């Protein structure tokens, strides 16, 4: 192996982001945070590393297997590098900001690190940008977060967004009301998450025919929101499950009022990736883009640090996928200023919005220098000329 390749090789799932991608990512992150702050969400910045026991306490324990750990030589305690920012923000809201008026709107943007990439996202480090709305249990809060995500992504030029709503609490509410054994529920969850109709049918011996039929119906109901709600409303659900359904109906109604033509689907049985969620959840997709652009949903803030639990909802956008969905931008115009161009001249051109690249060598041909450095324009005799 040459010395160069020795140095260039990075650990799996890590990459150098080069021009122009690094700038596109930074700008997109800032645009999203700006869009959130226009809706009254205030930015917070949690640290990269926290003590393991607070980072991974309670509901966030689902993230334990994704977390890099290291020993703090000062306190001699184990620390974890954040694998996700949502729970950090929830911790801030329920500790340091617990006396702020509710509902509290916070947003954030930063990098996270995971032990393993997934099949669709081999990256172990990627950016997350998100918003959390803490202290309201109203369906209007869920709808606000969905609208916020969609509008901010549209602000970036992503126009083919679709939103999938799920209700990970629905299936447990039904199985509990019918006294289904835990191990059967676990098999059922797995089958429903894979949308494996055959596996659900195979459980009909253990569930009883009526209940198995209900889950088969729920599984097949996944699809466009209005059609799915039509099917859900006809089901005879136990009380707790019916309450979940009512909440979903109101959320859909409010989202629709603001976005009549949005592609909105409902998946009543999905629970993967929503381990700590307690109500309506959302996933964002863009047509033709692999994987989710973001996800989020209702959860209990403070459940991981012994503070009073508060109803909360929020969403996180995954920048690696968001960037794949952004339409390609036109490369910026760069103007070459030959050696000796007056400093004031350059300053006034930059004020007009030009990106300027100055020649450093008195002997070089200006046209040559401009082409060499990939400039689109050249300043000659005070005139701007396209190359």
């Amino acid at each position, binding site marked *: 192996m040459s010395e160069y390749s020795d140095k260039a090789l990075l650990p799996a799932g890590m990459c150098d982001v080069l021009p122009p991608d690094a700038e596109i990512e930074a700008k997109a992150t800032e645009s999203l945070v700006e869009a959130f702050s226009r809706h009254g969400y205030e930015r917070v910045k949690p640290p990269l590393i926290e003590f393991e026991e607070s980072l991974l306490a309670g509901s966030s324990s689902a993230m334990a297997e994704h977390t890099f750990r290291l020993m703090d030589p000062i306190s001699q305690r184990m620390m974890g590098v954040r694998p996700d920012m949502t729970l950090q923000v929830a911790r801030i809201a329920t500790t340091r900001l617990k006396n702020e008026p509710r509902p509290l709107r916070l947003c954030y943007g930063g990098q996270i690190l995971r032990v393993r990439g997934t*099949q669709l996202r081999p990256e172990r480090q990627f950016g997350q940008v998100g918003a959390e709305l803490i202290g309201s249990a109203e369906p209007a809060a869920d709808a606000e977060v969905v609208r916020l995500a969609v509008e901010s992504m549209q602000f970036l030029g992503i126009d*083919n967004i679709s939103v999938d709503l799920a209700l990970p609490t629905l299936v447990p509410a039904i199985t509990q009301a019918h006294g289904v054994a835990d191990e059967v529920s676990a098999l059922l969850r797995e089958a429903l998450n894979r949308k*494996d*109709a*055959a596996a659900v049918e195979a459980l009909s011996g253990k569930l009883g025919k009526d209940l198995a039929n209900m889950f088969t119906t729920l599984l097949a109901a996944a699809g466009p929101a209005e059609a799915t709600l039509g099917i859900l409303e006809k089901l005879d659900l136990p009380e707790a499950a019916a309450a979940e359904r009512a909440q979903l109906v109101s959320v859909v109604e409010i989202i629709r009022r603001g976005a009549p033509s949005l*592609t909105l689907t409902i998946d009543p049985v999905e629970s*993967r990736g929503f381990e700590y969620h307690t109500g309506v959840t959302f996933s964002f997709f863009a047509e*033709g883009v692999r*994987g989710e652009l973001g996800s989020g949903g209702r959860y209990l803030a403070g459940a991981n640090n012994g503070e009073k639990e508060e109803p909360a909802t929020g969403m996180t956008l995954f920048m690696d996928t968001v960037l794949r969905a952004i339409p390609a931008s036109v490369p910026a115009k760069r103007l070459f200023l030959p050696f000796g161009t007056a400093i004031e001249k350059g300053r006034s051109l930059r004020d007009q919005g030009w990106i300027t690249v100055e020649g450093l060598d008195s002997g070089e041909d200006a046209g040559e220098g401009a082409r060499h450095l990939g400039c689109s324009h050249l300043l000659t005799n005070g005139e701007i000329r396209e190359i």
Partner: protein
Amino acid sequence: MTRKREKIVIALPKGRILKEVMPVVRRAGIEPEPAFDDEGARQLRFSTNHPGIDIIRVRSFDAATFVAFGAAHIGVVGADVLMEFDYPEIYAPLDLKIGYCRMAVAEPEEMVGNDDPERWSHVRVATKYPNITQRHFARRGVQAECIKLSGAMELAPNLGLCRRIVDLVSSGKTLRANGLVEIEQIAEITSRLAVNRAAWKTRPDEIGELIQNFRDAMLSKQAGPPAREPVS
């Protein structure tokens, strides 16, 4: 939306299953171009009677990979492949009830009888399915060392590569011809309609209609072609 949409790509597995799948595909109202049935054709991607649908023909393990990464939107994938890889991006909403077989553990005839599975702590197994095999043996506290082969598993015990194999068994003829006996069944296997998650979420109407067409095709197995209009 006026934007031109990507074609829907259906991934079908080559070989044994294809013959059983095609009647279902046709009953679902999808008719590939004539080159599809030409064994000698080098073409891998085929158009259909629907301008918005193409078919690709790939190896059965690859059909799952294409669907998992969204390169194909829909596919026909054996439950064995879904179990082996457990792709989170694949939904399997429909059991096509074709390609029946079972996944089983087999060993040489002469071993049966003086082999007590209760005493195992470690087994060495030749298989195309290392994940399923490991999970299966781990559930009963046995560590499985898997030797990954791509075919002709039945040779392994006779040539001393290992003593047991995990493979798909349909009639059991190949096992018998190689002096092997099926000792345990791991799962029953059929082919499933596999759907890419993001495709289903972003194009719910088209994908939903295709799934429904396949479902109708299953129900009308003996009857004539379905009355549904083609997906546009």
